């Protein structure tokens, strides 16, 4: 029998060795940024704008852009709170959408050569749709930057024992310095490197955690029975997730997940640097395979933490978010502890840097230059971008305190996705397959869908609607946003005039742009480079993985 213990103090017991490991990491990251400025070909050219990369590199970058520390801490929190059902986020809530992105959507993104999703909206619909999408995107990036900053503050609080608000302010200053010193190029490298470091830090947590609870069979026998199933009792809401199968399949598996993966430009952008259409299509599919296995690194630690700390997630005890830091503190000696801390800190910084650079690009180009004043020379916009960076970090400090109010940051993130991604996905998918859909239908559909999701959320928070759990509320919010967006889009389309076909070539399914030549390479015909074969393989594996946990 394992002794249950209350966990109160999250003070990480880091020593000199751990700080050396941490310092080494940031020396490397900043060193790359410094060297890249001197190189003729900058690393950014190499990484993003070259359109020269094979699918394994872009796939790696795609995977790393998603698997940051929020994802890892948040999914461990879900593992502790909802049990094995958390795998829905991976096997139905990610893999199918990643495969769909690769097979169906990627050719449109890659071949239209857009620099952002708002720009795609302008070309498919109109400037007003671009502006609306750019504004909601900018707001979402600042809110998500706040989550990263909050998480960074939590780790610093654990390391140094400072109060949370001091940690948040200091962390913000560090991130600002890091973006300014290292530049975007080092941020991109940091993003890929943090993934490997965080995995190296998590594997020992999983192994030692399993040893502690008596191995896999020990874990399975000690965790409450109802937390070990994925589909049991999903006919009603009487299961840990509080969602029935319709909510899981349509809310999570279709709207939230397709919305996130297919319109999230931080992800999609990674595939745009691929060398040809086939490599771009393979990018998310290559990333889907590791995604299948990530639950091992997140859900198992969550369940182990649930068994070890009896006050986890209860009032007076630590938040579910703390599951992994608690286990690190429990099991990792100095050395490996340093690796794990480095992985977490690097990951939050990479996440926040990506949010801030996304915000800065969209604010400068899709909002200011496209809609406020487009007559300045390029340098003027570069300066504006720098100011936007400072403004973005300042905004992130504000939203970090909003994030601090949620005991499970993943639920907060899902609520944000239901506002921003679900309606965007509806507009996107209808516009992609229905060439009659008009420019103003894009605008009004997006606006009404976003407002509908807000309305559902406010109704839930003020107890007008009862959805049981926060997560279920996100599923319903996303579903409502999607349906309202779709209805408004159809109604407005019927009342307005469609764009001529010539303007829609390459942007709508079935209207192929004949001016683009086929860019296939000779090796692309092989089965191991076929998006269809590899995509189907990922789907079959995802379905097969469910079998032991029905």
């Amino acid at each position, binding site marked *: 029998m394992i002794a249950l213990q209350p966990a109160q103090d999250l003070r990480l017991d880091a020593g000199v*060795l751990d700080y*050396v*490991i941490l310092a*080494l*990491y940031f020396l*490397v990251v900043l060193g*790359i940024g410094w*060297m*890249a400025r001197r*190189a003729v*070909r900058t*690393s950014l*050219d*190499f990484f993003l704008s*070259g*359109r*020269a*990369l*094979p*699918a*394994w*590199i872009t*796939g*790696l970058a795609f995977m790393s852009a998603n698997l940051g520390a929020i994802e890892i801490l948040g999914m461990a929190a879900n593992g502790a709170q909802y049990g094995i059902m958390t795998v829905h986020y991976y096997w139905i809530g990610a893999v199918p959408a990643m495969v769909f992105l690769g097979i169906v959507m990627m050719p449109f993104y890659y071949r239209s050569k857009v620099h952002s999703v708002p720009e795609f909206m302008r070309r498919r619909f109109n400037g007003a749709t671009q502006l609306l999408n750019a504004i909601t995107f900018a707001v979402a990036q600042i809110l998500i930057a706040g989550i990263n900053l909050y998480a960074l503050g939590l780790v610093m609080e654990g390391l140094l024992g400072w109060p949370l608000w001091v940690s948040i302010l200091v962390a913000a200053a560090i991130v600002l310095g890091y973006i300014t010193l290292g530049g975007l190029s080092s941020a991109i*490298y940091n993003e*890929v*490197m943090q993934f*490997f*470091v965080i995995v*190296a830090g998590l*594997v*020992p947590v999983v*192994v*030692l955690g399993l*040893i*502690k609870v008596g191995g896999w069979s020990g874990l399975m026998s000690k965790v409450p029975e109802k937390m070990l199933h994925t589909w049991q009792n999903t006919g009603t809401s009487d299961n840990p997730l509080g969602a029935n199968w319709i909510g899981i399949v349509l809310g999570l598996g279709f709207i939230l997940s397709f919305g996130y993966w297919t319109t999230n430009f931080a992800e999609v952008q990674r595939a745009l640097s691929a*060398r040809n259409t086939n*490599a771009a299509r*393979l990018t998310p599919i*290559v990333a889907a395979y590791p995604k299948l296995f990530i639950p091992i690194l997140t859900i198992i630690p969550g369940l182990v933490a649930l068994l070890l700390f009896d006050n986890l997630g209860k009032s007076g005890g630590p938040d579910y978010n703390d599951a992994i830091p608690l286990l690190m503190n*429990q*099991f*990792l*000696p*100095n*050395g*490996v502890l340093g*690796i794990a801390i480095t992985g977490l800190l690097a990951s939050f910084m990479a996440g926040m840097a990506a949010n801030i650079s996304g915000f800065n690009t969209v604010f400068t180009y899709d909002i200011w230059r496209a809609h406020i004043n487009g007559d300045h020379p390029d340098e003027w916009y570069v300066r504006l971008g720098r100011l936007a960076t400072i403004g973005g970090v300042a905004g992130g400090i504000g939203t970090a305190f909003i994030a601090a109010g949620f005991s499970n940051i993943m639920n907060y993130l899902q609520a944000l996705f239901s506002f921003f991604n679900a309606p965007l996905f509806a507009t996107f998918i209808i516009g992609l397959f229905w060439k009659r859909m008009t420019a103003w239908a894009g605008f009004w559909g997006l606006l009404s869908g976003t407002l509908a999701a807000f309305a559902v959320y406010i109704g839930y928070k003020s107890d007008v609607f009862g959805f049981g759990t926060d997560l279920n509320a996100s599923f319903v919010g996303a579903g409502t946003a999607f349906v309202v967006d779709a209805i408004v889009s159809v109604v407005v389309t019927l009342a307005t005039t469609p764009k001529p076909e010539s303007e829609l070539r390459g942007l709508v399914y079935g209207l192929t742009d004949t001016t683009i030549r086929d860019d296939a*390479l*000779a*090796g692309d*015909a*092989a089965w*191991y*480079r076929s998006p269809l074969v590899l995509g189907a393989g990922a789907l079959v594996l995802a379905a097969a993985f469910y079998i032991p946990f029905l």
Partner: protein
Amino acid sequence: MHNLFDIRRIIGALFVVYGIILTITGFVDDKAAIQKALGVRINLWVGIGMLILGVGFLIWERLRPVTLEFQEEVDTSTFGPPPSGHDETPSSRDTE
């Protein structure tokens, strides 16, 4: 031409250095450190693992470099399927 900024070279080097640090730490760990990790010399095992992964990345980068020139490439199919699952790695070698 080898690219100094190849991500494999950077991750490889970082992991080799971390691997060496952890392996040495693993050998000299005191009882308290080993007890904390439930009797496992975890620094040693993770150190060896990181060392192997780091060396693997460096070898991979040596054997199949990615250069910016390969855009003008070349029929990769003449090389046949690569041996070890890194299917997408292009080769900068000349076809002739």
